[in-house]
């Protein structure tokens, strides 16, 4: 979670939100949340679990998140 917050602090083009799954079950279902943390970028589910900083950036900066 903190990596996402750090990227939002570092870039004006990024916003980062933690979403408590059990409190928003409809949205969590729509995002197929089975395991946490589940990372969703621009409304598209991406991966589950914590990853190192470099890998996190590799993934969120990958082409395709228009």
């Amino acid at each position, binding site marked *: *979670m903190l990596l996402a917050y750090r*990227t939002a602090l570092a870039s*004006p083009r990024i916003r980062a939100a933690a979403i408590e799954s059990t409190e928003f079950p409809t949205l*969590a279902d729509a995002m197929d949340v089975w395991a946490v943390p589940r990372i969703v970028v*621009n409304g598209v589910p991406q991966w589950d679990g914590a990853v190192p900083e470099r890998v996190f950036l590799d993934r969120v900066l990958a082409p395709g998140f228009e």
Partner: protein
Amino acid sequence: MAIFRSDEEAKVRELFAALERPVELVVAHGPEETPLPGARDIDFGAETQRIAEELAALGDAVTVRVEDEPADAGIRFERYPAVAVLPAGEDVGIRYYGLPWGYELASLVGAVLEAGRRTSSLAAESLDRLAGLDRDLAIDVFVTPT
């Protein structure tokens, strides 16, 4: 009930005392999704506000503002309850949606600590890569309190 054990509270006070710039927590109330069975006795909005206020009480640099009409607050919220974490009064898009309880309290404390830094804790290489970002990204991290 206090949100921290006394030893944890002392540690958080120490960390908040070292903040390099002010951090504002904006608690937003609005229509909430129907909670799951078994959670109906919890007032998520009230508890979220209580946690934010108790956090703000642990450091002079941390303040809290409550918005009952968030549409007028000039800060966009997508669901409620919500907490926006504003470094030096600026909205940079940091949100916590839901009640930050249990394990996730650490995420909110972490957000305050990160927002209170004048320099990023990311690696220089990461900052270079982010500087080249040419599109908007909305990163949502789904979490649970346990």
